[in-house]
């Protein structure tokens, strides 16, 4: 017998602050994030850092709008991720947060080249989906588990994205150094790249582990052992194994540098595959 302790009794429909205000705020955030996109495009084209400071400021303001948007959406729907767009939106917001933290700690301006477009695209996808968003909230999501599972998984994904970006920067810098064509880039040093990659991995892995665990428990409660045959969950497990091996090789075998970088990138490809695969519980509302 499954006890549905996690269920929230369906209450009266909450009061909407303004029709679709969260969508409007998200669009505003998107507009502000576009400055970051411009920074990346111009920096790559002109091979010289352009518009970085304005991009950071715009992103900071955009982030405030973004958080407000998510807050209003959660209040109105009485749950997280009620609509497909909200999960994209949440990812984007956490990515912005991660970027701001990393920038604040390491001052790696070159990270922006990856981070800004990623943030923009995620937010853009969220805005696109916001147009045909379903009005009703799926019954399945009216569970307290969502508040545990979703944030853990999203934080984990974003931490892995940071690992990935740092390792890509590592590979670029490493190649330049090996080829002795040291250009006048402002890439971080190899040690900083490795440090960032390792720290974000150390943060991401436990989050992802707990995220997957909470998902499994939730599924167990809803439908017993059926989740085991869900391909998305299987993929998530494979991804988790790749990262487990990565941590193992780093700690036990002392893997560093290129080998570790390639593995981290492989891990992130697995993350992307898992993320884009919709099946089972995630089929209807969450990628």
């Amino acid at each position, binding site marked *: 017998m499954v006890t549905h302790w996690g269920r929230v009794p369906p209450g009266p429909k909450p009061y909407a602050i303004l029709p679709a205000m969260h969508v409007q705020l998200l669009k505003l955030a998107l507009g502000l994030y576009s400055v970051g996109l411009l920074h990346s495009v111009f920096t790559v084209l002109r091979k010289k850092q352009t518009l970085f400071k304005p991009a950071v400021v715009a992103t900071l303001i955009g982030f405030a709008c973004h958080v407000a948007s998510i807050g209003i959406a959660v209040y109105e729907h009485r749950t997280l991720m009620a609509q497909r767009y909200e999960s994209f939106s949440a990812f984007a917001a956490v990515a912005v947060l991660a970027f701001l933290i990393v920038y604040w700690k390491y001052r790696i301006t070159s990270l922006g080249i990856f981070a800004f477009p990623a943030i923009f695209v995620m937010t853009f996808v969220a805005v696109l989906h916001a147009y045909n968003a379903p009005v009703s909230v799926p019954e399945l999501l009216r569970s307290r588990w969502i508040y545990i599972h979703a944030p853990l998984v999203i934080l984990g994904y974003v931490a892995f994205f940071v690992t990935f970006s740092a390792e890509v920067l590592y590979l670029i810098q490493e190649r330049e150094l090996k080829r*002795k064509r*040291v*250009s*006048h880039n402002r890439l971080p040093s*190899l*040690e900083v790249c490795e440090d960032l990659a390792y720290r974000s991995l150390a943060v991401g892995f436990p989050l992802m582990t707990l995220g997957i665990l909470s998902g499994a428990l939730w599924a167990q409660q809803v439908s017993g052992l059926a989740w085991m045959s869900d391909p998305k969950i299987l993929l998530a497990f494979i991804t988790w194994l790749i990262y487990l091996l990565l941590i193992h090789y780093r700690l036990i075998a*002392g893997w*560093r540098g290129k080998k570790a970088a390639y593995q981290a990138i492989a891990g992130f490809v697995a993350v992307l595959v898992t993320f884009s695969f919709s099946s089972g519980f995630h089929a209807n509302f969450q990628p």
Partner: protein
Amino acid sequence: MELALIGVSHKTAPVEVRERLAFPADKIRAALAKLLERTHAAEAMILSTCNRVEIVAQGPDAQLVRDFICEYHQIPPDAISKHVYSYKNAEAIRHLFRVTSSLDSMMLGEPQILGQVKEAYRLAAEAGTIGSSLSPLLDRALAVAKRVRSETGISQSAVSISYAAVELARKIFGNLTGKTVMIIGASKMGELAAKHLKRNGVGSVLVTNRTFERAVEIAKIFEGAAIPFEHFTDHMEHADIVISSTGAPHFIITRPLAEQVIRNRRNKPVFFIDIAVPRDVDPSVNDIDNAFVYDIDDLQQVIDSNMKERMKEAGRAEEIVDREVQAFCTRMQSREIAPTIVLLRETYEKVRREEIERHRRLLRDMPAEQQQAALAAIDQVTQAMLNKILHNPIALMKEMSADPQGAEFIETVRKIFNIKSQ
């Protein structure tokens, strides 16, 4: 008053000429005093370095300054005439700004020149030959140089072997604090590279050499540890940076050795700087993961590419200098124009009154009443004429205040109207 800059530099004169024209620091004070006396300059400064000898002076005749240089050093004027350049006003300001910003240096963007200009400024100030004209000019020149340094990359990247080594080490390790460097073989260049690394935070230094005593000597300089040459391979795994410069005819650091070292370090990166010819480090070591090998040619290549980058940045620096020269000229001229205009008016007002007074006797036969009326009419007419005559030069001077040629123009006006400062 005219600003003049007369001098020779590495661009116009060979060292044989420059050394004969140099002013030793302890003689500059006396030389400045003589210079003012001989050339009637109001203010002056002498900048004498190994690459240039320049005299900046306010108010002298350029020819007199040339004569002074020849007399002082007892050289016939013909011997130097083709090497000497002289600039006036805006051109002199531009040259001074370019020199101070290291745009005219032999090694583009080298930082020493700024200190040398400061020193020359200080010597002249002590000698009392700096006044209200040169002081703001030199202050501005120093400010422009700082601006050029901070806003362009002209002195950013390394252009010497030892700095290139530091720059590369930074790209691998980021912060060099607490890193260990190992010096294999005793050479000046190796020592220099180690010195720069140490200054940039490297913690401990290990030294090894075939003659152990020499290793001990060098280790003492860096407060490091000397290692007998037979055992250096055992200690290599502690080194993050290895500088090798032995006279060995074969590779000292072979691929198997490097692989072993990296393994022992659990893949922590090692930066091999091979400044020996023939080389000490097998170039295939560079193919090992986490090992980075730079030989002397690789370092030279880094320097060449940095040099090109400096050239590019120099273009931006020239733009900054252009704008600064323009702004400085405008400021100085507008400061000079107002008193000139006042002086011009005062001088001719005085002439007018004197002339009226002088010709007053022509009216002495008139009755008092008529005389009064005639005087009033004369006063009015002469006043109007004077205004008409002075209108154009004054308007032109105001217009020229933003022009680089403005100072010369004002000088011309002063000459034509024969006005002298009080």
